[in-house]
């Protein structure tokens, strides 16, 4: 046996194929968040649907006054706020995973993720603004009710 034959076959050096390491267990937190928020959203959404569509007069009760009545209570303000934030982040994170899977070019991934972040932030900000600044009976400068407000405002004042 010659020396050339007894040589071990050359092994190609390992080449990294991954796209890069994630920072600080980010993907793990994302996974845990999806599980936690998913369970919480089930409770929040189904209670929301039950209160709005089944209890009381059912679906016929929903009008401006019903919404105004709900948002007069801090419980429903917080409830709807949590539902809004969790649903947007849960859905947004799901969309992020889809973008990671299917957008192959870096610029496309970045563009889509930026768009997604803008959408999620806008909807959360607008939604919370409505929940917390909602006033069913706005007054004008002199302290009188503005024209066109619902009739129940006369009783509330």
């Amino acid at each position, binding site marked *: 046996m010659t020396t050339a034959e007894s040589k071990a076959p050359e092994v190609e050096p*390992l080449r990294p194929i991954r*796209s890069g390491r*994630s920072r600080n*267990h*980010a*993907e*793990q937190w994302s*996974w845990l968040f999806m599980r936690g928020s998913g369970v919480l959203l089930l409770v929040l959404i189904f209670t929301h649907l039950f209160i709005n569509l089944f209890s009381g007069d059912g679906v016929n009760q929903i009008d401006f006054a019903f919404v105004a009545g709900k948002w007069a209570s801090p419980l429903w303000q917080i409830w709807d706020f949590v539902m809004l934030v969790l649903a947007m982040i849960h859905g947004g994170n799901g969309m992020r995973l889809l973008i990671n*899977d299917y957008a*192959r070019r870096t610029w496309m991934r970045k563009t889509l993720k930026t768009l997604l972040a803008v959408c999620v932030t806008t909807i959360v900000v607008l939604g919370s603004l409505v929940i917390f600044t909602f006033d069913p009976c706005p007054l004008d400068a002199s302290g009188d009710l503005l024209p066109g407000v619902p009739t129940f405002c006369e009783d509330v004042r």
Partner: protein
Amino acid sequence: MTATAEAPSKAGEVPSFDVTLRIQRMDPDGTPDHPAGEEYWEEFTLTMHGTDRVLDALHKIKWDVDGSLAFRRSCAHGVCGSDAMRINAKNRLACKTLLKDLNPKRPITIEPIKGLPVEKDLIVDMEPFFASYREIMPFLMTSGPTPERERLQSPEERARFDDTTKCIMCAACTTSCPVFWTDGQYFGPQAIVGAHRFIFDSRDEGEWDRLEILNDKAGVWKCRTAFNCTEACPRGIEVTKAISEVKKALNTGVV
């Protein structure tokens, strides 16, 4: 195989039937009818027996009909894992799939496993698959001096990772995974099965090195529990369960 084929066949011994195989083909050098690299379907109609497997039909084509058909096979008995292919839209080993179980009345489609680059006909480039496996360091990692005798392990400790020792690296699971199909970044089920085999081995001390690798962006968190891998595994490994055990170890910190 050859001996029985040459022997005079007695009528009614094993029922025979005509079966059509619809094979996805690709020649990197091109053929007179098809330009280089084009994927096309070709049908072969054969007379086979009730005891024949898909691999026997492929052999018959290669040996008697069209010698240019390319596919991998080594042991031909379900041990080496060379002949994983997509048969009737499901990943299986050609050597473990009987033709009569596939409804031979209709054409049987055979494609290369998905998600890896096709080299020719049913042969794919397995390198990305092996690269993932290498990355999880599939070897015993220990510290301290090597013991003079074997490293002892109780039957319970052995049972902890018994399921994942059955892997033959045929790539049926990884190439059935919809997440692996999307961008090829994901380690794939097989690499996680390979890591599971060492992570839960009481003799191995490299579990946190491997868990750290699988905590990667393209690691276990990409698994969406589609269960395609568990369904595809010709060895019956509960692949999705193994992946979930790795997730649990990462979340609880307990191996």
